């Protein structure tokens, strides 16, 4: 059974995959930039993507990252993929 996509769930996932929590902002909001704002390296980012796919039972596409600017955009993308899967 998949988990509902909400901001607290996503922020918990993000925090669990930060390579250096001390380098991340104290508060992660929908406006926090994904690139640069979270200080994630390539392996951490890949781990986060896999965790998102496992948690929400979705498949993110190769080009999905290109339009992402903020954590809110990422949440919207997760919802979009869930909606596509249910139709």
């Amino acid at each position, binding site marked *: 059974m998949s988990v509902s996509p909400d901001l607290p769930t996503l922020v918990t996932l993000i925090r669990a995959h930060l*390579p250096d929590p001390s380098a991340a902002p104290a508060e992660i909001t929908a406006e926090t930039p994904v690139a640069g704002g979270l200080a994630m*390296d390539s*392996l951490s980012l890949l781990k986060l993507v*896999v965790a998102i*796919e496992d948690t929400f*039972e979705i*498949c993110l596409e190769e080009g999905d990252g290109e339009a992402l600017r903020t954590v809110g955009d990422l949440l919207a993308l997760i919802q979009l993929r869930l909606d596509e899967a249910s139709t």
Partner: protein
Amino acid sequence: MYIAAAGTALPPHRYDQEALIDAFKSQWQGVHHNVERLAAIHRNALVGGRNLALPMEAYLDLDFERANQAYIDVAVPLGAEALEQALSRAGVSPEQVDVLCFVTVTGLAVPSIDARLMNRLPLRADLKRMPLFGLGCVAGAAGLARVSDALKPGQVGALLSVELCSLTLQRGDFSLENIVASGLFGDGAAAVVVRADGEAPRGLPEIVDTRSIFFPDTERVMGWDFGSGGFKVVLSAQVPHIARDSLRPGVEAFLGAHGLSIDDIERFVCHPGGPKVLEGVADGLELPDGALDASWASLRTVGNLSSASVLMVMSQTLDEPPPPGSWGLLMAMGPGFCAELVLLRWLT
């Protein structure tokens, strides 16, 4: 002092990367939702296939004890094959070897594999053995440097690397680090013979100098953690960044001590750590296109064989030597984090 010959040996169980991916998929299913993403990680390693110590189905029954026993059972004959080939190519009999350095990081054996080879090959009882464990991927370069340090004038030395990376595989570890490693590393052995009995004959490289480089406070960049299941890989995204950003100053200082620059190196013999590492090395040292072709070819053919890989690339380089007078640089990086450099020259 010069490299007289190299030898290589691969275990007989050969699988192409897609066959291995199919086998891994059955393990990943039920744990990870998008197994195609994990398959893409394996494809992105740009490895065409790998030789394994055991038939694929045998890995399902391995625990740490069985895996390590398999390591010993396979490492001894595979190591003997690589060493005998190198000695034969060098025109050296086992009895002539004065120093034998053995490097590995993928299995444990006491007595070490080099000691077990004493009972298999006609090596002398007064042979000075030097088993080195823990240097990881850097050990091919480091071992060559240590052999050259240890040899006295007139002596013959050999370096043997046996790495059976597949036997360290943690089937129950579904971490990304383990998945990345399981797509990249293969099994094999390689040996190099070094002679300190005169100038290098035409076509063979003189060992001019060696250099160790240590990068402080990088202990978690690469290595093993050990648990009841055996070896668990430590791998960070920092490896390609160190290759790109931190290797160059050490290389320039080393070459500068000989009045050389990176542009003076005709032949690079580089450990094929993985696509991002090779790209990092090429970018960081600003190498011309094709400079690392032999390393890319080795990666594509057999994967990353840890310490044996750079010696496989060296073997290929000996088969196709550059023109007389050319300089060469053998280099590898590994846990520590650290690098080892060996300056080579093909004499005129």
